[in-house]
């Protein structure tokens, strides 16, 4: 299948590590993900709350530009907006007409949208991941956190079981880590209130972090940059506010996958995480203990 890659603004700004690791992993798997030229915002910002036409026209503009290729997406919010736009435009003729007049071109809602997880599942295959692992993540207990945008609304997203998705768990298991059973895979982190009502966000994010910790996770991985940001960036504030230690690194799933493939922490942008993942990874023997230098930081297979 041939793709165009839609990075979205998060991957261009707050989620640089996601972008780096996505590109590194794509290279490792020989996935060709050329960036969509001249892409614009997907509308997941204030747009979709304030103006319904904008919320469709913005993603439609990008989808139209994909011109027949499949849109590859990493950001769960972008994924959501793009799929919702396709759904609305396909199912509501009046919406299609409005979008057409806004864009000056008719878009029929037919550009396929795939999340990187789906691309890895379909084009790489979980068996292939297992074969390509050079640094098995043995003993690393991972809480797979999907967030809400990837799976909901289920009728539109059709991503996985909306209540108990397992795709990320299977990818993580293929990489040799141990995905834990925990009940908050799709719990809301409060990202939509991230700016306006941070005390709500902190409470919601705290519940997720505490549940992961209590379920025995060493770290959380997520495919959503908004979730990652909330759980990672706010973790210190949360610890201070609730007076408890959490200390959970929040990795993009591509970072974890990259480690298993033998890519270096630097290539994967691990350095930009707020909660340092290196001590945990070192404790599990996935990277060398700090101080041994980058060259020796990846455990070679015995």
């Amino acid at each position, binding site marked *: 299948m041939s793709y165009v890659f839609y990075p979205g603004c998060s991957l261009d700004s707050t989620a640089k590590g996601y972008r780096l690791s996505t590109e590194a992993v794509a290279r490792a798997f020989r996935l060709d993900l050329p960036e969509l030229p001249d892409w614009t915002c997907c509308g997941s910002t204030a747009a979709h709350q304030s103006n319904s036409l904008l919320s469709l026209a913005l993603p439609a503009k990008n989808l139209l530009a994909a011109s027949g290729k499949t849109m590859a997406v990493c950001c769960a919010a972008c994924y959501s907006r793009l799929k919702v736009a396709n759904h609305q435009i396909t199912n509501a003729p009046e919406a299609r007409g409005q979008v057409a007049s806004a864009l000056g071109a008719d878009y029929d809602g037919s550009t396929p949208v795939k999340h990187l997880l789906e691309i890895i599942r379909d084009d790489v295959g979980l068996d292939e991941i297992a074969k390509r692992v050079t640094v098995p993540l043995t003993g690393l207990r991972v809480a797979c956190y999907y967030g809400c945008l990837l799976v909901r609304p289920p009728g539109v997203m059709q991503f996985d079981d909306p209540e108990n998705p397992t795709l990320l768990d299977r990818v993580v298991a293929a990489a040799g880590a141990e995905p834990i059973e925990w009940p908050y895979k799709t719990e809301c982190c409060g990202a939509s209130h991230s700016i306006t009502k941070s005390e709500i966000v902190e409470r919601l994010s705290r519940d997720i972090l505490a549940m992961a910790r209590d*379920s025995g996770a060493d770290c959380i991985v997520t495919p959503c940059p908004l979730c990652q940001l909330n759980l990672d960036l706010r973790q210190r504030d949360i610890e201070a506010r609730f007076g408890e230690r959490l200390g959970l690194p929040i990795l993009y799933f591509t970072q974890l996958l990259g480690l298993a493939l033998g890519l270096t922490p630097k290539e994967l942008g691990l350095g930009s995480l707020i909660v340092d993942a290196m001590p945990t990874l070192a404790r599990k023997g996935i990277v060398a203990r700090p101080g041994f230098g980058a060259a020796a930081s990846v455990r070679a297979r015995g």
Partner: protein
Amino acid sequence: MYQDDLPTGAVLVYGAGIAGIQASLDLAEAGFKVYLVERSAAIGGRMSQLDKTFPTGDCATCILSPKLVECGRNKNIEIITLADIESVSGEAGRFEVRIKKNPRYVDLRKCNACGDCAEVCPVSLPSEFDRGLGQRKAIFRPFPQAIPNVYGISKAQGTAPCKQACPAEVNVQGYVALTGQGRFKEAYDVIRERCPLPAVCGRICQHPCEAQCNRGDVDEPVAIRDLKRFAADWVYTNRDQFAEQALVSPPPEQTREERVAIIGGGPAGLTAAHDLSQMGYGVTIFEAMPFLGGMLRLGVPEYRLPRDVLDYEIDQLLNDRIEVKLNQRIGRDLTLDGLRSQGYAATFIACGAWTSRRLNIPGEDAKDVWPGLGFLHEVNPGARPQVGPKVLVIGGGDVAMDVARCARRLPGVEKVDLACLERREEMPAHAWEAVEALEEGVAFHNSLGPTEILIENGKVTGVAFRACTRVFDEAGRFSPQFDDLQVSSLAADTVIVAIGQGVDAVSMSPVVTGPGGRIVAGPETLATNVPGIFAGGDAVLGPASAIDAIAHGHRAAEAIHDYLRGEISQPGAGTAAETKVAPNPNPSARKQARTPMPQAPVEARRRDMREIDLGYSEKDAIAEARRCLNCGLCSDCRLCEKVCAPGAIFHDMQPETEVLRVGAVILTPGSEELEPSIRGEYGHGRYANVVSSIQFERMLSASGPTEGKVQRPSDGGPVRRIAFLQCVGSRDSARGNGYCSSICCMSATKEALVAIEHIPDAEIAIFCIDIRAFGKEFDRYVGRAKAEHGVRYIRAVPSRVVEMPGTKSPRVRYFDERGEERQEEFDLVVLSVGVKPGASVAQLAERLGTRRNPFGFCETDRLAPMASSRPGVFVAGVFQEPKDIPESVAQASGAAASAMELLAGGRGMMTRRHEYPRERDVTDEEPRVGVFICHCGHNIASVVDVDAVKREAVGLPNVVVAETNLYTCSDTTQDHIRDIIRKNRLNRVVVASCSPRTHEMLFQETLRESGLNPYLFSMTNIRDQCSWVHRDDPAQATQKACDLMRMAVGRARWLRSLEMRRAPITRAALVLGGGLAGMTAALSVADQGFDVHLVEKEAELGGNLRSIHYTLERTDIQEFAADLIGRVKAHPRITTYMSSQVVEHSGHVGNFTSEIQGPSGAKTVRHGVTIIATGAVERPTEEHLRGRHERVSTQRELEAQLASGGLPPDLGESPTIVMMQCVGSRNEDAPYCSRVCCAEAVKNALALKAQRPQARVIVLAKDIRTYGFRETYFQKAREAGVLFIRYTEGQEPQTSEDQGLAVRVTDAGTRRELLLRPDLLVLSTGIAPAPDNRALSGVLRTSLTADGFFLEAHPKLRPVDLASEGVFVCGLAHSPRFMDETIAQAQAAAGRAATILARPYLEIGGQVARVDPLKCTACMTCVKVCPYGAPTMNGRHKVEIQGAKCMGCGSCVAACPARAIQLQHQENRQLVAALDELLAVPGVPT
């Protein structure tokens, strides 16, 4: 005998839940033949799974079981289980129904349900009956009270993949299952049936079975081979425990003269020799080598197969019919022709594949270059060939691995390299072999093609290679390509070439050979071109596996056997049908890693040839075997067949079809529960402590998987806090169904109350939208749950259940009544799953041509609720609409009545009555007692010494015969008992066996058939009372059995023949009430051919029906009413009595006399039954300014208004209309729900919105109880803009007159007080019992409920019967209900009435009470205590008991102060005699 002009007097009832059972019983009792067709193995349906019933608290099984037994015993009900309808042709009155009967694999008539089969069955499967909470065996009985009370086997559609994959057809699932049970010897026996070398195969088999194992989809395949090895090793280690014969195959049944020669003593030859010797042939094995075993010995390294294991198994396999000649090579020592002349009638060539392929490169013939097999032939018998320190193996297959690993173990070898053409992942060797070789230090060099063996000074120094760029072409064929420019070399001083083997069968001429020197033989028969000569194994296949060789050995033996008997084998015959592979029965099985095979440490392995794999421990083996998913369900091990004493098991049963001729079909297929996972956020299936309501029901049941203990499935821990989550899949059009399942609110309440009985300190919360307790006595029940037991009803739909880490306690998140988010932890969460039509029912409806409604239920009309869209096909129970047990039972009786109306002319045409021989008069005979003591298989005899009981019986006075029987109840024993009675002129029979409840009638029947009065029989239960309860104390159990037997004999001596009287029946019904219920009942009874006296107190017919103008579904109710009244008036069999009342009612069932007081005086009528259909009234009220304000009306008035001219125009286009529910009901004065008012309000609200779309319609209610499909109208009303405001109990709305009408109400959701100013206030005042019910109940001597409605005999199973036999109730006189429910009940009453009116006579049982007039003092005590009204005072001032009313309970006997009453068959002297025997008082009079 069929008559052309009459309908067929038989009915097919499809689905044997409580509805189907009730319909069948009614029909059979009323003179119709019934075929009760059930898809599952037993009748009983959903009710059999329930623990208790609401609101009565009865044990569901206890009240259902007698119905099951009754159904099983009725001679006119043919129960056909495991069957389905294929097609229905013909028309109403004359259908032909084709049914398909699936095999049970157990003969219904032979099985005695002793359970020995299930005891030995090794296969445990999740129990469907317990919804996966418990386990059952592959041969099973769904529940202990099952009818038919027999076992059955579940087999998958297809063979288990492991068994299918085994070339030798070893029953893999069978031995794995037995191993899992710790029954290793039996497992070994199963293996040995098809594999004569279990320990060998258990070590070296390539296990194609594991590749196909379905467990592989879940995690990893079951370690089948390792389990096989374990079973064999275990048996050999413990061989002292077994007789010698137990380890070898039994000698043949017959010996045969022909002798067979076998060439080659490898696995193929040995297997063929074994099989042929078992068939009775003499066999000679000619082996070229000095030992047997072939490639097993020379090809397989010792570290994989120790020699002692091989030697021992070969020894076990040989016997005195097998002669072994070693060192005999064809072509050298003997010829094929020579064998024939020596008298061998057939020959099997299994000479193997022994030539090593060559590289054909320079230097290959040097001294230190070994062919792979040649090397192994040196090493494996124990020699230690001289090889240099650096060994290079060429080849990438299994033999190369063997060679390399053997070389690695030789003394002096320092380094072993292995070079092959293939890339690492392409190497043909098994992955585990390669891994083990690597572990042992063999170095692999991939993608190398050897070009020359380098030699210096005559000694090998190494091998030169070029790069191999490709081994296989695109089509996967071997077609190597090389790059001559990339060259390399490896140093070595010994080279071993292991690149494959070939066959050299030139010496076998004239047998034709083909490619690669292999012998050409037919794939099925293994016959060569020479008649009488067969060939198999590697000689035919080329180098293959041991299991393929064994398979060929079997096949050759069978082919030779056929050949020698002159039969030509049919290739493939009989196997084609078995090619279907069973699917994975449990793809979502919990993951459990394969048990690793313990291995010797790598260091130890490099040093010597000792075995690497160490074998499983018993614990390992059992754990590993239990990973098996039992894909075939039954494993076909056939152990059940072996232990079944009556010989009832037939594994080869096939499906059958049968065509039944019936006049009508009644559909009662019931429902399925919705998938609890439909609400994924509640985590069913993901969280262990979230169960479905039916699972919880099983958990509560004493016969359930936890024996009634409520425990957390996660850890078996205690449960205290339970949450019920209602409406899972119901009232949820987005994910589930838009309708209400009607039963869940009450069943959750019941489960809560039962749970509290089990756990006194339980804390229970029921999360619900509404509490729909709309049935008779339901609101009281909920009230008790709240007030007495503290059950919390929380009005919330929880958003999520989360399993807490560590504790695994489910936490429920919801918004509480104050609107605040709460998270509450529970020990257990129960999901109240709704009901839906079964998956198979859709196809059934298709085949029947009956329409289904949008939800998939049977489509019916509210005014003809039991009629499907196809005439002659009726429906009842949940398949019509979700409903509870009494409504299902009533509908079933109603559907039966519908069929009886249709088939009235065929009544009695297909039923049969038993004719008995003339009864012998035994009055003057001395007692001659026969005692029959039952073994009940092992059930009794394994604990009670039945022979001791017999010996004791033999010594008793009057006992003429005493014997024991394996199964006293079996058909053959009945013949035998009849025989003994005749021969010995017995006049009393005693059976000591099981429960009289199930079996007494059977034996009494046998007595009647022998010309004895059935009351000359005495039965005692030495199973339940002795062997079951005193299992641990056989001596005392036996003593007790002796005591019980003696008591029975003592009583038997005094038993008398009792006369069963017959009374005539008056074939007419008295129907009281001319409303919808009365008219419907009257018409149904009359249409069935009986006369009806219909009494109506008003001057015209119609009753409440006259004030109903439209329903939610229809607008033509008044036309319907007019038509109904017309039909009643016109019916020739109905006499109407208008403006009349019954003032006197006497007599008993079958013969009542009533006095009807009418305008023109009194009239006396005689009738066999009475039907009460006197209706109820709209509750009068003065609340809410009713009667004082002109804008306050009732729903009924509003309906009349809307139906006639619509709302008054002065209300304007957008009036505010407030409807107020529960006015005057569900309060202390009338603590019951009127059931219809919510739907009535919705109905009128919708009508209002239709007439005035701008109207604001507001409904104030505590709950909205639009159950069943009416829920969809509730939704429509909300969509139409009708506003529903909920208020809470105790905060009822207040109405005042304050600038017009003012209604104040506090909204329960927001807790805000609202002030409404309605232009019209409509009160839902509900239904009140008719004021004259009390007087009427006095006349009829029946009881009323506390609310003033008529009290039925049993709220669940006898909903329209009253306690006095022959009196029935229906319609509003029973309880508030809708028109469709009234029609169902009315027809039910008519159907029940027919079961009496259709009898030729009334049979009055022998066990009735009798009054001695000389002793009677007329104190009337008996009249007061009798629950049935049987004793009456006669003209001579003495009490007489009406036999027709007496139920034989004995209450009057116990109560009579003058001891004037005796209960026949339980007379004092009979009971005293029994007690005397117990206390062993000598000198008992005889």
